[in-house]
């Protein structure tokens, strides 16, 4: 009789290891392909998986094989008009057929294209990157606590009574307390029985025994079914938990000088940041603040696409960030990240104010503040003032982006793994 085994439930991805080996081996090529794509790919589907193609010559498995040429004889089916000795022109499609056969063995194609999952994509994308200052801030992060079970105690509130445990200890107490009287009772009962067997036994002794037995029975009966002593309570303790929520402030200048292309670059940058944060935090809130001379909190659509004109006062956005943090995102509960994109324009007298707000009020509350300047022109006042913050604040960073291709390298620069 055959043995019938249902293998469907187990070990589905036996090849996962091999697949990982493949990705591991060609990490360099895949990363290269990904970073080439990132500057071109459309923003909306950045959340999905990715199709990657790498040059086939890198992944070929060479073996000694026969090349075409030489003298070959082959047998084919389906002769129609040929007779022995016929000469035929060498058909052109022969090469084609060879090509197809070669590609089956992994060569001949120029590109080997395949899909990688979203997770694999993000892993490759953010490989070697880490959230800055994560370690140093680890303790500060432990701000939320969670209630967890921690065994049983002897006192507590009635709602936490553990019935099974309580009754179990009540039972053992009853057994223990009743053991001695029950033993004596059995002895007396045996004695009484002997007495009753004897003809004309001692009536007085019999009565005494009976009385004694009654007393003992009463004692046993009076052992309480449950006592406060028996009660057991479920115990709960508070355990500090790292918060897994983060908020990301996106600050953007929408004054007249910011054109759609600049905004697009900024948007890509924000998306990368968002994806990166979602790898470390379960919930990521995003707050969009746009500003010209005044700041306004808006939704995503308006943030990226509405057009405004006018001058620029950056500090308005910083103040608004500060206020929103105070109202909605206490730094004890939230990991706060902020990224500001601007073309560098600012009302000159405002830049020192920005420096002050950042240094004194914002940076102490933030995990990280990243400033990107998207411009092809020279830096202006804001850049200089921000530069001064670099010295004394290690959670502040700034970079300069000129064109699409810079986004990814700059992003990597921001979050490069710090070697300590």
């Amino acid at each position, binding site marked *: 009789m055959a043995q019938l085994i249902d293998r469907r439930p187990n*070990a589905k991805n036996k090849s996962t290891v091999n697949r990982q080996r*493949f990705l591991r081996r060609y990490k360099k090529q895949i990363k290269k392909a990904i970073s080439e794509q990132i500057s071109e790919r459309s923003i909306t589907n950045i959340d999905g998986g990715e199709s990657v193609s790498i040059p086939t010559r890198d992944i*070929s498995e060479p*073996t000694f094989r026969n090349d075409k040429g030489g003298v070959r*004889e082959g047998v084919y089916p*389906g002769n129609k008009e040929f007779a*022995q000795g016929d*000469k035929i022109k060498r058909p052109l499609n022969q090469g084609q057929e060879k090509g197809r056969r070669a590609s089956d063995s992994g060569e001949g194609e120029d590109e080997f294209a395949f899909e990688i999952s979203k997770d694999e994509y993000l892993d490759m994308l953010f490989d070697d990157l880490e959230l800055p200052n994560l370690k140093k801030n680890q303790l500060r992060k432990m701000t939320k606590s969670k209630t967890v079970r921690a065994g049983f105690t002897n006192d507590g509130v009635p709602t936490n009574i553990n019935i099974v445990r309580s009754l179990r200890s009540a039972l053992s107490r009853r057994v223990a307390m009743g053991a001695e009287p029950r033993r004596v009772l059995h002895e007396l009962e045996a004695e009484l029985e002997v007495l009753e067997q004897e003809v004309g036994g001692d009536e007085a002794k019999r009565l005494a025994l009976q009385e004694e037995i009654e007393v003992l029975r009463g004692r046993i009966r009076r052992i309480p079914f449950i006592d406060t002593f028996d009660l057991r309570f479920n115990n709960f303790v508070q355990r500090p938990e790292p918060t897994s929520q983060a908020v990301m402030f996106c600050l953007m200048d929408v004054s007249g000088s910011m054109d759609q292309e600049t905004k697009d670059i900024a948007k890509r940058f924000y998306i990368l940041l968002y994806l990166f944060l979602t790898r470390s935090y379960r919930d990521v809130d995003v707050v969009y603040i746009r500003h010209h001379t005044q700041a306004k909190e808006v939704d995503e659509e308006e943030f990226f696409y509405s057009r405004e004109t006018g001058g620029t006062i950056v500090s308005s956005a910083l103040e608004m960030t500060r206020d929103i943090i105070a109202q909605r995102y206490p730094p004890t509960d939230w990991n706060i990240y902020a990224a500001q994109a601007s073309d560098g324009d600012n009302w000159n007298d405002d830049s020192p104010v920005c420096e002050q707000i950042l240094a004194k009020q914002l940076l102490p509350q933030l995990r990280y503040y990243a400033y990107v300047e998207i411009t092809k022109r020279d830096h202006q006042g804001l850049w200089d003032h921000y530069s001064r913050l670099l010295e004394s604040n290690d959670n502040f960073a700034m970079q300069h982006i000129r064109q699409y291709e810079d986004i990814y390298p700059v992003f990597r620069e921001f979050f490069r793994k710090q070697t300590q």
Partner: protein
Amino acid sequence: MSEPISTGAEWTFELIEEYHAEIADIAEEFKLDTYPNQIELITAEQMLDAYASIGMPIGYSHWSFGKHFIRNEQQYRRGHMGLAYEIVINSNPCIAYLMEENTMMMQALVIAHACFGHNSFFKGNYLFQAWTDAEAIIDYLVFAKRYISDCEERYGIDEVENLLDSCHALQNHGVDRYKRPNPVSMREEKERLKEREAYLQSQVNDLWLKTVPQKEAAEEDTTQPNFPQEPQENILYFIEKNAPLLEPWQREVVRIVRKIGQYFYPQRQTQVMNEGWACFWHYHIMNALYDRGRVTEGFILEFLQSHTNVVAQPEFDSQHFSGINPYALGYAMMTDIKRICVDPDEEDRTWFPDIAGSNWQETLDFAMRNFKDESFVSQFLSPRLIREFKLFSILDDEQLTELEVTSIHNDAGYQYIRQALSNQYNLSMNEPNIQVYNVDTRGDRTLTLRHVPHKDIPLAKNREEVLKHLRRLWGFGVKLETLDAEGKVKSTDECAA
């Protein structure tokens, strides 16, 4: 008349068992001798997994399997590729994988085809008996997987991966074509492992120790014999035994790749026969099921449609043509042998005097046991089949501008076509003939290979890549000499130390 086992398309485990029992009963009547069956039901994804590791249920990990998996998965997802209905493994018990997507009819067909057709072929054919040990293969694969993952832990993934890459490049040249290898089993392997490591190392040292000193002796003895004394066709074996710098564990890995390559060698030599045999029997078994009244007419029609697709041979000018279909040729030849036995005509009596009119079951059994594709074709391909397939042979000489039709399906051509087709299945004519020729034991230890081109067919360009892999294994420079028709060295590829 008995009741059909099932009427619907859905399968259940109970039904599979019932069909298996019925088919086993029929197979016994046909005197098929098989290993016990182990039938495993798997998903399409698991089928892809099995594909990637060449059907082996337990394979060691390597990126190239991942590559194949990714490629297959993609083709399958995009609908470019159908999956095989079954994979069967030459082991005892014989493991067959059935896909869950199959209908009840397909499951029954697969049981007949794989669990009785292929299974009895594995058990009976002389090549499998001589070269593979069905009892031990699963154990050996388990051993190999463990050993290689141990090595990865000890020496690092990269190190092992590079070594495996090099071994894979030469896997086709790690086969003994003529010498019978010893069967392998895990327990034995383990016991002998330590012993072998020590011994191998001492052998290697011996070879090099003898050759290092004695300068004068070398100068006077210019006619000293080649090492190896005779050319060796099994390059991996030569490496395993003689490469000077390999660590013992590296030798063991070379051995594992070699053993697994060796295990698959008979399958590559018997494709036509193996598939033909399995198709022949599934056809007979399914029809017997129908004759016994155990399956419905719908069932048998569904079967016939599937069967016809499998054994169809597109003609050479069809867009579906991709060489001779081994299922078609094998099935046609097996059926033809039966016909020659049962109902021979004059032509058959002339061509096959010894089998015409004999007991067909005995004759087929004899053919299954004692041949491989090459000899099977040259022994049993009948003129009638050549006519049915309208076979013709074409000579393609690079030197000439035109192809020549050397023979067609007529009286003058039968013998010729039969021989040409037989050659087509002769692996040693289709794989480059490369042998270890010499080692410069007194000089820089360069290893020299010799390629003897068959009919001037050159080696593909990537030979340089393969030489690099060989260099990694050998540890010193390697040379590949190509000979011309007179046996003189025509050209040399070199990969220096």
